[in-house]
């Protein structure tokens, strides 16, 4: 069973991202689970969501305390994300405009904001960065691009889907593993 946690801010679309990932698992012939943590917080507060994928039935229902993957939706959240737990060899996927290494963890970076902006994915008060992030995470998890695309089309049949598709595809293909994965004091603030 693969476990993944998303750390984001309210309003960034982390729940949809979690749902997309779980749906991609199903599309990929596996079992998927998306388990957002619901708080009373209004938008702007830090939020979390858990995603699990497995070839067999998923019985776990807790938050992912030691996930294999952590998606960090904003650089501001690096400290928080790591301190909440991740396996020693866990992978980080981060939305950032430039290469960022998170501790000793294998880290992948994607500029979801730029991609979303270019694709015209504007939301009420920002950008839909969850769509490019979805593409990026699929790539990191080795989910075939076809599956990733189909998941989006299932959710948004029609022209809306096309826009999202472009952004996700772009991220799928531009997400890159950060070279230096040594503990990097410049990043984060702990």
């Amino acid at each position: 069973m693969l476990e993944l946690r998303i750390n984001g801010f309210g309003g960034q679309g982390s729940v949809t991202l979690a749902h997309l990932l779980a749906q991609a698992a199903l599309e990929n012939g596996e079992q998927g689970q998306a388990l957002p943590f619901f708080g009373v917080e209004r938008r702007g507060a830090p939020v979390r969501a858990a995603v699990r994928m497995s070839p067999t039935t998923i019985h776990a229902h807790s938050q992912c305390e030691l996930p294999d993957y952590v998606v960090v939706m904003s650089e501001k959240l690096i400290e928080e994300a790591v301190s909440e737990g991740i396996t020693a060899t866990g992978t980080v996927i981060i939305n950032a405009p430039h290469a960022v290494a998170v501790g000793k963890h294998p880290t992948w970076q994607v500029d979801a904001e730029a991609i979303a902006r270019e694709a015209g994915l504007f939301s009420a008060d920002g950008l839909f960065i969850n769509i490019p992030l979805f593409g990026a995470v699929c790539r990191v998890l080795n989910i075939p691009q076809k599956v990733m695309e189909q998941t989006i089309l299932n959710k948004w049949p029609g022209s809306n889907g096309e826009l999202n598709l472009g952004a996700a595809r772009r991220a799928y293909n531009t997400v890159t593993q950060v070279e230096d994965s040594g503990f990097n004091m410049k990043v984060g603030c702990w």
Partner: protein
Amino acid sequence: MKAVTKAYRPISWPMKGAGGDTGTWRTHRPVVDIQKCTKCQICWIYCPEAVIDREESIVDYRYCKGCGVCAAECPTGAISMVKEE
């Protein structure tokens, strides 16, 4: 009658920031052009967050949620909403 246990109730006490440092919620910040400001206090009374100083039209950014009501209501256009970077 002296109570035997401490009255252990779920009590809360008044304090600023009961909802956290709500300034972090902002996507845009209100910036007051003090030149244009007539000190009419309209922004002060409509601000849901009570973060505008009545006399000086100064915003407490620690808690201002960036709703933009003040800017929308300022009769002189003294307040503009500037994107937070």
